[in-house]
């Protein structure tokens, strides 16, 4: 037998005790064929397209899960940014398309569908404006639809008018979903350098450069990496820590590669990418914060956190790069506060602040993620936080994103229970010395010198 019993047992332990799973199998669908001048007709075509193209997604994922014995936690769908369809219909209200996406997602049994999105990093077109204006209502009226807007890129700089507009949209969405802990904002991401093949919600879209139907897979496994780091001796040096993480990341990625190939084959879709992001869950131990602490930081957020996170993120990529030739998506550790029990504890104990999370953003992906802030946080302050995250992304040629939740009626010290994978969000303090005047200047933060590479 060329597989040893020890290897079999190791794999089973990873699954049964360390939360190894495939976080998501996401089917990307092109909706270009659904364009029409009438929003209701677009909605009907979108429903038909998604419901028919994705009908086998859940059964196939369930069969693969059973046969391989590896849990597939989520099955999701991403679609062409809906602003492209809104541009063709040029009408007042396109929320009918959001409702159609919601119904189609429910019909095929997926919990989230991403792509109610626009790319406005250089300018806002009419279709983009229609879509952005509709986001608060679209997110309030639907359960499964996720929205994302790209407001900055390294090639174009930061569209500060779009940043301001999105800060307003975040506030409006919080108000529109106030009865539900302002959860609408948990389904809304503001990006710099958005990627076109991200399988993770809420920022998944199916980009213009993609084929008609593509399978993208997001791996998981913070619990497995934590267990490996904890099994090392206290005196193991950081090279040994990096080596152990790298070897583990290889195995996790291989599982993702296998599932992606098999799902694409069975669904007759192209195999897209494997996203090497370590995505935490609220389950005890399945935590990126716990890995940082296992590496040797007293509490996530304390001095040393950025170093530990950078080492973790780099080692995961090095191991993952050997595991698949199709790396894509966001591929960086996620640090969503509400979804990570270790992060929640660190915030509650005062170890982790918004400013430290911003620093952490510079060495991983999507840093300011699932962060509850006081409901009365001014729009300009939200815009300035978004702009800071964008500046890190634009200057460093990387994706950054913010998913802030100004929880209406809540303040620092409160917390909001979202349940399931979204966890519990402690309301975090926001620095009161915001760049309000900076934001009111508007205009465009010019493309950085680093964009001139040709």
């Amino acid at each position, binding site marked *: *037998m060329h597989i040893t*019993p020890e290897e079999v*047992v190791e794999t*089973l332990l990873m699954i049964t005790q360390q939360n190894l799973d495939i976080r998501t199998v996401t089917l990307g669908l092109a909706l270009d064929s659904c364009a029409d001048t009438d929003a209701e007709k677009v909605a009907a075509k979108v429903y038909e397209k998604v419901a028919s193209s994705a009908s086998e997604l859940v059964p196939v994922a369930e069969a693969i899960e059973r046969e391989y*014995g590896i849990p597939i936690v989520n099955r999701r769908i991403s679609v062409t940014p809906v602003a492209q369809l809104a541009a063709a219909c040029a009408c007042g209200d396109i929320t009918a398309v959001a409702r159609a996406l919601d119904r189609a997602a429910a019909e095929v049994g997926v919990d989230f569908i991403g792509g109610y999105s626009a790319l406005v990093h250089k300018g806002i077109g009419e279709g983009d404006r229609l879509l952005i204006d509709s986001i608060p209502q679209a997110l309030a009226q639907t359960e499964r639809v996720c929205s994302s807007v790209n407001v900055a890129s390294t090639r174009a700089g930061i569209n500060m008018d779009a940043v301001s507009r999105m800060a307003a949209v975040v506030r409006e969405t919080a108000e529109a979903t106030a009865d539900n802990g302002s959860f609408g904002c948990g389904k809304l991401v503001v990006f710099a350098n958005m990627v076109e093949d991200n399988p993770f919600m809420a920022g998944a879209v199916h980009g213009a450069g993609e084929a008609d139907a593509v399978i993208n897979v997001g791996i998981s496994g913070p619990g497995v990496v934590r267990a490996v780091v904890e099994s090392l001796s206290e005196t193991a040096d950081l090279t040994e820590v990096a080596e152990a993480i790298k070897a583990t990341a290889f195995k996790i990625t291989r599982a993702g590669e*296998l599932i992606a190939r098999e799902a694409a084959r069975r669904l007759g879709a192209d195999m897209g990418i494997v996203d090497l992001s370590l995505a935490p869950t609220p389950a005890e131990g399945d935590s990126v914060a716990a890995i940082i602490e296992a590496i040797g930081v007293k509490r996530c957020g304390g001095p040393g956190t950025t170093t530990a996170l950078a080492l973790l993120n780099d080692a995961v990529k090095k191991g993952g790069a050997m595991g698949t030739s199709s790396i894509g998506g966001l591929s960086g550790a996620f640090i969503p506060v509400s979804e990570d029990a270790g992060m929640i504890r660190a915030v509650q104990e005062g170890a982790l602040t918004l400013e430290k999370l911003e620093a952490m953003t510079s060495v991983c992906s999507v840093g300011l993620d699932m962060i509850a802030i006081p409901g009365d946080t001014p729009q300009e302050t939200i815009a300035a936080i978004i702009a800071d995250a964008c500046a890190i992304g634009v200057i460093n040629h990387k994706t950054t994103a913010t998913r802030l939740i100004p929880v209406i009626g809540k303040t620092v010290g409160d917390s909001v229970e979202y349940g399931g994978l979204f966890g519990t969000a402690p309301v975090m303090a926001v620095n009161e010395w915001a760049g309000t005047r900076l934001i009111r200047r508007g205009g465009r933060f010019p493309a950085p010198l680093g964009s001139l590479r040709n």
Partner: protein
Amino acid sequence: MQTPAVLTVLGEDRIGIVAGITDVLARASANIEDIRQTIIGGIFSMTMLVTVDEDVTPFDTLQTQLDEAGQRIGVQVTLQREDVFRFMHRI
């Protein structure tokens, strides 16, 4: 279709575990290619490499039959396609 798979059995040692599991495999026309078994501290651990003839018994049917046998005997039985181990542990 001949599908290579890894079968793992874990549980408290007792009489009839191997017989109970191999009986299910034989009835399903699944061939045992390799078998390793140890008992550590009273815990029975068995790993088998088997080839499942899916034309005779579909993979999920065999999984169900093994689950039932495992419950009858009082052990945990897992049947997984072999390539997951090859992918994760070999370059």
